[in-house]
């Protein structure tokens, strides 16, 4: 058989078979992967919202920098009254993207709870924002500081001192950048979320 023809046939065959195999793989694994992602998301939402609430999903699409972005809010109602909004925010940390699930009071003036969903910060240092083994009583002390924290005019942080005022938290020693990133992300994204929701 002509050599060039052989080359083309073999390469095409390999690529086609590969594509077919992968298509089957996709169909088989994608539902599981999506289901897992939804499960993680749902757990996070219910963890930051108060107990015994009815959750409704609200989606808003906004044009930003020429791109259309979708914002998703989880509205929590108790006895037909809105008690909280939960939503996901993200931003750059020291060396990885930080993803946080946060819940706020309906007027967006106070954080009810926050949970870190994803971070790949420096092991042993930046990772303390999610889990600090050196604090045996409360390894999640850092993110717990945000419970009940007031947002306006803005959240601030201090180093090596106890926070003063109800808008301040203490940064982690040796992980200032990661700590500051959390504060910065919450400050900008919560305010942004409020404007999107109000539209």
């Amino acid at each position, binding site marked *: 058989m002509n050599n060039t023809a052989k080359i083309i046939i073999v390469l095409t065959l390999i690529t086609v078979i*590969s594509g077919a*195999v992968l298509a089957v793989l996709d169909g088989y694994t994608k539902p599981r992967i999506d289901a897992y992602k939804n499960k993680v998301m749902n757990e996070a939402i219910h963890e930051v919202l108060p107990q015994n609430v009815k959750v409704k999903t609200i989606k808003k699409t906004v044009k930003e920098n020429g791109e259309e972005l979708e914002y998703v809010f989880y509205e929590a109602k108790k006895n037909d009254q809105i008690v909280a909004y939960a939503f996901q925010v993200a931003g750059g940390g020291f060396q990885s993207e930080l993803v946080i699930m946060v819940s706020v009071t309906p007027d967006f003036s106070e954080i009810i709870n926050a949970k870190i969903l994803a971070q790949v910060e420096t092991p042993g240092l930046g990772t303390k924002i999610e889990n600090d083994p050196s604090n045996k009583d409360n390894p999640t002390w850092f993110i717990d500081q945000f419970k009940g924290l007031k947002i306006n005019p803005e959240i601030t942080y201090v180093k090596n001192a106890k926070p003063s005022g109800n808008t301040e938290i203490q940064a982690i020693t040796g992980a200032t950048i990661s700590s500051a990133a959390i504060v910065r992300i919450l400050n900008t994204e919560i305010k942004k979320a409020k404007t999107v929701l109000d539209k």
Partner: protein
Amino acid sequence: MKEKTAIQEFVKGIWDENPVLVQLLGLCPTLAVTVSAENGLAMGLAATFVLLSSSFLVSMFRKVIPGQVRIAAYIVIIATFVTIADRFLAAFAPDISKSLGPFIPLIIVNCMILGRQEAFSSKNGIWRSLMDALGMGLGFTLTLLVLSSIREILGSGTWFGMNIMGESFSPWGVMILPPGAFFALGCLIAGANWINSRRKA
């Protein structure tokens, strides 16, 4: 040169031609994922799966794949199996998938895998190719296991998540950071060199 038996093809990958310590292949994942024994083991097994499957196919079709496009062909085969491994991990072991992160797809460019296709599977029968792949994969996995155990024990005080160093041990954080990876691997390679030079003496 006397032809090796199939068993010898298998054994050589574990020490004499150890892909990491002797051939210096696959260094990127070796350094990156060995922060914990569990991760090291998972990466080793995933890479072994890809190596076995690819060697099997390449050896089976070695007389059919034209020489000029063999590298492209091997790469597509390898990339396909890596995608399979990646998706399976994401679907059935999502935590491991998350911690191994981008290094699963990087198995594609793990010189060890492409190297074995070029150097062995394309020129040998299926059984011998499988033995070669198994040996290389095992050598790779064992090396990762040793390296990640050292790093996890010294760097976190645990092994496979179990606390084994006791309360009073203050972990050497540097071991689970990049510098620690380089230092540990450097010492392992030096150790292997030393053992080999004593054997030859």
